[in-house]
């Protein structure tokens, strides 16, 4: 997790986005989004993600939108794309 130059958050999702990883991500997103910072989520490492992880991402996108912060998932891995597509969440998460 690094701070961007514009004080935004750059967060790398781990290989396995389980409930524990989702909780860590939620905490980091919450702080950044509440502060009105932009959030960049690196999804390139994700090999496995379930509902807990997708919920965090969906909530993060909705919250960032409410607060007019920018949020995006960069380099989504194939498993991440597949999980989002399966759940019908791709477009909500800005994924193809």
């Amino acid at each position, binding site marked *: 997790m690094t701070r961007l130059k514009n004080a935004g958050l750059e967060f790398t999702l781990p290989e396995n986005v389980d*409930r524990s990883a989702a909780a860590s991500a939620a905490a980091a997103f919450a702080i950044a989004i509440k502060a009105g910072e932009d959030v960049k989520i690196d999804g390139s490492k994700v090999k496995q993600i379930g*509902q807990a992880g997708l*919920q*965090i991402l969906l909530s993060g996108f*909705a*919250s960032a*939108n409410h607060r007019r912060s920018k949020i995006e998932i960069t380099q989504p891995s194939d498993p991440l794309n597949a999980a989002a597509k*399966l759940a019908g*969440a*791709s477009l909500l998460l800005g994924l193809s």
Partner: protein
Amino acid sequence: MTNEEIQNIFLMECDEGLSVAEEGLKACQVDPTDGEAINSIFRAVHSIKGGAGAFGFSNLQAFTHKFETVLQQARDGERPIDMGLMKTLFQALDLLTDHVRAIKGEADNPDDQHISAELEAIACAAPPVVASADVETGLPVADTGPNTDTSDDDSALDFDLLLADLDLDLGEETAETLRPWIVKVQPKAEAMANGSEPLRVIRELCSLGGKVVNLDVSALPEIDMIETDQSYLIWTIELADHVDRGTIDEIFDFVVDDYILSISQAAVTPESEVALVAVQSLIVETAPAPAPAPADHEPQPKLFATPIAPTPTIRVDLDKLDRLVDTVGELVITQAMLVQRLESIGVNSSDEMSQLEYLTRELQDCAMSLRAQPVSAVFSRVPRIIREVEAQTGKSVRLDVEGESTELDKTVIERIAEPLTHLIRNAVDHGLETPEERAAAGKPEQGVIRLSAEHRGGRILIAVADDGRGINRERVLAKALERGIVARDAKLTDEEIDNLVFAPGFSTAQTVSNISGRGVGMDVVKQNIQALGGRVTIVSRPGVGSTFTLALPLTLAIADGMIIKVGTETLVMPLTHIVECLQPQEGDVQAVGPGHNVLNVRGRFLPIQSVAAALDIAEAQSDPSKAVLIVVETEARGQVVLMVDTICDQRQVVIKSLETNYRAVDGVAGATILGDGRIALIADIEALATCDMLADDLQAAA
């Protein structure tokens, strides 16, 4: 739901449908072979037709029927989508928009004879078309090419169900021959804590040929409230009717306790409720226009132009919202008064007061956001304006739009419609060259208009850029001299020459047309934007193009202001105008005539304007070297220095209209109530800076 409520939903769905159709037509323009684009237009028009018939809007129904017939031929490949057809389709869409406005009572019934006849002629010229089952039934059929599955047509499906709920007779529109399984999967809150992974269940349902037709995220809390063990999502999955019910049940054999399940066949009553919820998520006035249909089979996110999670919504009268905003404004004032009162008795800070201030600010932000709308509400009118000007000028224009989900106050949005129309028409008519001129200049024959919106520094910037010829400064200056707008001996910078286009009555158009060239447009643009507390700037490069940028306040109700004192009066200066505040050193202020001074600001001499003199305030500091000097940015004169006695504070102020409560006063933009309960006037910086006409000459002399 009452008939009236459902009719209102239909009217909103019409707007959604028109936006979808507009996007679809634009996509077809780029790629006439885009099957999904033509499908999306067809579905949108079909959906409007269905509702129009149900509610007895016969004119609308008749027109959409003709429109739909041609679209169906195009969709089925019976008619190539060429330039001629595109033109007719765009005209038909514009007329459809007019029809929708007519049923809303916003306009008279349009005269559609000409376009109707054209549509009929096109339809007759093609082989007869048999309605295909996929759209008429709202159900998927095989072999209609990719993405023709209308299960992703949420709006049509939902609306049909709504109508069914009302028991309205739609005839063939609701005819059904197949009844697919609708499986609603709601993991219980503690399902994941019990070790269940709902995505596995979804995967298994999809492996039976199921498709997620709705992902309900309305229960999702904000990110700071979410509990990762809890489940908040609800899926609706559609499965073909030939799938055995027992096979579906088997998937849940060992996890049935972790789920709330609903398995039924389409169009049965419980699922109508699901549709109602989905439709209600569409009816927020602030909901952005739907995005073009996705390339994959995910239907529900296309309800949103940007990745916005749907949340439960209700519709509220604007009056109620305004009352809330007003009350919150009063609360802000009261909070400031409380702070001041406590300070007067020696209580300077406390955790409770800090918390109250924080909560008040949060409440205010929330209240203001209730009035926010995406600029797409006004941007959506632009394609039609461009089409009209294209037709009138023979120019070819591509419109690029960015940031249409950017939000700002509803009133601001309403008031920028006219200025934006002027700017767009002007950009096409004046800014862009003719195709021949562009070809001669080595440019593509099609000109580009780029419309964008973004938040920056507490303001919203709306830019209209063209890649045309740029402002012809020689001609602008010559015209300004001819009309006596500038003095013969005036030496103007490029920027000042560009700004002459905003002078009242100014126009360089060779011929007066009904598009632009009457010289009444651009000054109206500037006046309207200034009346909103915004400003217009121009950046133009010869041969490359021009960009007109509107900088607008996010809201008209609140402003950050600097509290200043001039003599016995306390005034508020909007921070948006203030560049810097200075206490002059010896020699910084120089006299350039009786009663007129300039300030040396790092080598630039700026005219000093006394606020006391402008507003006729007594007992004020008259010596600039002993006063506080505030450098402000103005539209009319660039940077000007305002002279005040002292700066007291900087705070957010609630703007009260002086005009509404008293009358308009020159030099005063409004009023506010300060923390001590006193009323302070909010300075109109533009008016203060321009009240001394000599200031401009002084600046030029300096």
